């Protein structure tokens, strides 16, 4: 174990089968018993612009990606241009030799600015601005070219149309052959992907066969990776994890307005809305399904979810920055009216439309303060696919228990990260379900008679009570009385104190590594994996490190964070944003100032290698701030 570590970047035009290729590769690794971690990158475009998947596989746990790539698989000329920085000594560059004639000037789907950058690079290095020139440049950097005449290799086995339809399968299969994955695993992957389409399946299997044969005869075969048996595992993205966690957590009503990268979560739920499996397993009352509603906008999405919550359902909505902005007013309402509501906020590159299909972690302070006025809320974040599941369950619990809006932050990177989990524990999180006692007359939904701040829950259909966005009395009628106002404000905020007391520290902040270390990472969200992996690498180069991983920002574990950081040496805040928002929250709550930063705001995922390098710069050279730039 711990021997194999393969990084693959496979690229091609958006809509041109890249996702399928990546799927095949991931599955093939998985069938071979390997662990796989991958992230998808794509433009805000439907067809034509460059898209790629970065896949890393290990025979050990893998939690991040690393550059340079071991293999760069180009399904179009643009990929060769776009990924030159990923190529280094030993990188194999697999491509269709037909690309060699392409000129950078013709690559109209490459963004102008990117083209300019590529041009500069090539000209500076003294190469032509063509695929050929680029390949030579790559070679100079130590890359090994693997040109293949895709069409002529494939034409013997493809009879149902142009061979181009099978280029993605071919590319994937060649890759698998090169890294030493047995053909049978690749075939299983093909069967998974095309399972129900007999005719397509047949040709694809033939293409795989051809690919392995071609590689065999051209010595394009890696050292064989022995298949390992593993118990059933499950391959999930962050989007999947959140959907599964919500449904496990008892969610039965979800609203959404389409937006990247959030709507995939809702689509997955729609696909399982009937909860078919429950049908035969449980008693009458438990049968049912999840109602998933596409609304006319995000104002409707959040208010509809809030309305549903009033009847006692567990309900949520999911969105990203622009939609979340539109939800601010209604979040304030649910805070005022103590409605249990979960908003899953998939952060992407901002501000405004920003980089709509790219990563970002710049909505933290906004999530903590969105909505006018003051009201208790809970803000939590997830850092890997497993967490998206259990955190989604916890989010629903918190909402119900503390009767507050819960904002669950996920980032685009995590949403589009695919990981393999060994299983899902249905008993990790217990559902905390408030009792609803039928009562009409005199039912005090907002009773002040509570030291915890939590009043008895009610439900429309079972209780008569009122809600109003105005300040209200215990029954829910409008009041402008100064004393009632103060008491209700104080009652609401008592809930936050209660939550702070009750929620265990491990759900708020976790320390990885030894108590004392040369370097202390502070971070949150999808940097979790890269940092954990980087810690191992740093150890190898003689830098010991530990990691304060933050999961809950409101209420914030101030004392814990203070005590840990107070005694730490070189503290480095790592975030995918520009203004180091978590560090600000730390200072606000502890008075401690952090002086070292590793920040990334170009919209791409943080990788292990750039983290290691940045830490070295800070630790060894005294640099205060490093801006990460990896990624195409």
């Amino acid at each position, binding site marked *: 174990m711990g021997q194999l570590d393969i990084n693959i970047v496979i690229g091609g035009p958006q809509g041109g089968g890249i996702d399928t290729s990546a799927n095949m590769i991931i599955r093939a690794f998985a069938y071979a018993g390997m662990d796989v971690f991958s992230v998808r990158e794509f433009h805000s475009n439907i067809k034509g612009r460059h898209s790629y998947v970065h896949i890393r596989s290990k025979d050990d746990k893998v939690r991040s990606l690393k550059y340079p790539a071991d293999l760069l698989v180009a399904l179009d000329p643009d990929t060769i241009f776009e990924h030159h920085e990923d190529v280094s000594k030993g990188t194999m560059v697999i491509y269709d030799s037909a690309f060699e004639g392409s000129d950078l000037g013709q690559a109209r789907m490459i963004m102008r600015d990117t083209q300019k950058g590529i041009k500069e690079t090539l000209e500076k290095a003294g190469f032509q601005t063509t695929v050929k020139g680029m390949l030579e440049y790559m070679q100079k950097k130590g890359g090994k070219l693997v040109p293949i005449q895709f069409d002529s290799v494939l034409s013997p086995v493809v009879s149902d149309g142009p061979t181009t339809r099978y280029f993605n399968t071919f590319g994937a299969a060649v890759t698998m052959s090169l890294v030493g994955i047995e053909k049978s695993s690749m075939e299983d992957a093909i069967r998974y992907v095309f399972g129900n389409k007999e005719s397509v399946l047949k040709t694809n299997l033939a293409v795989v066969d051809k690919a392995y044969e071609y590689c065999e005869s051209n010595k394009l075969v890696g050292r064989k990776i022995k298949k390992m048996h593993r118990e059933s595992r499950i391959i999930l993205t962050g989007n999947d994890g959140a959907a599964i966690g919500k449904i496990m957590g008892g969610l039965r009503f979800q609203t959404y307005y389409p937006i990247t990268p959030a709507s995939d979560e809702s689509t997955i739920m729609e696909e399982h809305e009937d*909860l078919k499996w429950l049908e035969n397993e449980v008693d009458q009352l438990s049968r049912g399904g999840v109602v998933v509603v596409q*609304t006319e906008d995000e104002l409707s999405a959040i208010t509809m979810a809030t309305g549903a919550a009033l009847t006692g359902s567990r309900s949520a909505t999911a969105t990203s920055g622009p939609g979340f902005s539109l939800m601010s007013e209604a979040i304030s*309402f649910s805070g005022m009216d103590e409605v249990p509501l979960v908003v899953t906020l998939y952060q992407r590159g901002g501000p405004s439309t920003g980089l709509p299909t790219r990563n970002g972690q710049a909505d933290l302070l906004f999530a903590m303060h969105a909505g006018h006025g003051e009201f208790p809320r809970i803000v939590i974040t997830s850092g890997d696919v497993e967490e998206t599941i259990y955190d989604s369950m916890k989010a629903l619990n918190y909402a119900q228990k503390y009767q507050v809006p819960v904002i669950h932050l996920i980032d685009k990177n995590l949403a589009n990260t695919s990981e393999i989990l060994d299983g899902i524990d249905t008993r990790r999180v217990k559902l905390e379900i408030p009792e609803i006692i039928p009562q009409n007359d005199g039912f005090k939904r907002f009773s002040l008679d509570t030291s915890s701040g939590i009043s008895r829950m009610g439900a429309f259909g079972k209780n008569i009570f009122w809600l109003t966005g105005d300040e209200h009395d215990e029954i829910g009628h409008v009041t402008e009385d100064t004393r009632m106002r103060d008491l209700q404000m104080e009652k609401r905020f008592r809930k936050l104190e209660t939550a702070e007391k009750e929620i265990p520290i491990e759900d708020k902040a976790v320390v990885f590594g030894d108590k004392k270390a040369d370097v202390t990472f502070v971070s949150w969200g999808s940097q979790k994996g890269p940092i954990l992996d980087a810690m191992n690498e740093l150890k190898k180069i003689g830098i010991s490190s530990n990691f304060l991983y933050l999961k809950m920002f409101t209420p914030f574990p101030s004392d814990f964070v203070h005590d840990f950081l107070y005694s730490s040496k070189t503290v480095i805040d790592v975030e995918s944003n520009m203004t180091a928002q978590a560090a600000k929250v730390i200072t606000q709550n502890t008075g401690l100032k952090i002086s070292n930063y590793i920040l990334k705001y170009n919209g791409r995922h943080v990788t292990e290698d750039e983290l290691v390098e940045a830490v070295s710069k800070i630790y060894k050279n005294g640099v205060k701030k490093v801006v990460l730039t990896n990624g195409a």
Partner: protein
Amino acid sequence: MAHNFRSDVAIDWCPGCGDFGILNSIQQALTELNFGANDVVVVSGIGCSGKTPHYINVAGAHTLHGRSIPYATGVKLSNPKLKVLVTGGDGDLMSIGAGHFVGEGRRNTGLTVILFDNEVYGLTKGQAAPTMQMGQRTKSLTKPNMFGRVNPISLALTSGYSFVARGFSFDGKQLKEIIKRGIQHEGSSLIDVLQPCPTYNNINTMEWYKKRVYKLEDSKTWEPVVKNDDSNLEEVFQRAYAKAGEWEDKIPTGIFYENNNIPSFPKRINEYVPRYLENPPSDQKISDKDGYTLVDPMKTFSEKIVETIK
């Protein structure tokens, strides 16, 4: 014993406000339909009209300006057994909430939308609402109204509401009957209620309306109901739409349009979530006796599973 639909909250509308008549008609309709205490929910936005839920003794949500419809839709979809009334202002439903008003026509969820049509923004001191005619100048305006009028009846028809009617707050009898029919209607209904605001609207007053309103049902040839084979759909719809255009001298009240052939949104959901109507989200049990989830994720999401060497 019949439930008492009057709450004990002091009403703070202005003397002579048309809102009182609407409130009475709603309460009477609920009483005559024999609803129990927990059968009905009233949802409003913000405005003088927005205060209505507090005055009715059923569960009520006085929500955000313009958002009454989606809040109400959430209540209804999560528990389709409830009757959900929306009491909204003309600013609330036709201006800031116009997008949701149109969206609800597409859904046809089964809400009873009662529009308090006073041509002004009452609670913010009398600015022009979208129902005011262009060029009209009520006493609270610094100049004549600059904007065109949106006709709630026309907009409801265009958006897809399957029951469209108009009442007058000073004709409680007719209004109560319309509300009853609206509530009994399976799809979504829009009931536009002409509601004088004596404080800010000195033009469209009770007297002004009294002189102009007439009842559609008084004409023998008026037939607003679409046959269940849709054979008269086009005709009924177009006639309703043309009728909606009448204003100024003669203002029709009564039922403009009723179409029972479009399944409500809850019914449509039930096609894909087969146990939905009988066991909606609000009623589903979600945990086992120990409090753990009932959902086996590996079975439910079995397509995501990977097995080595099967």
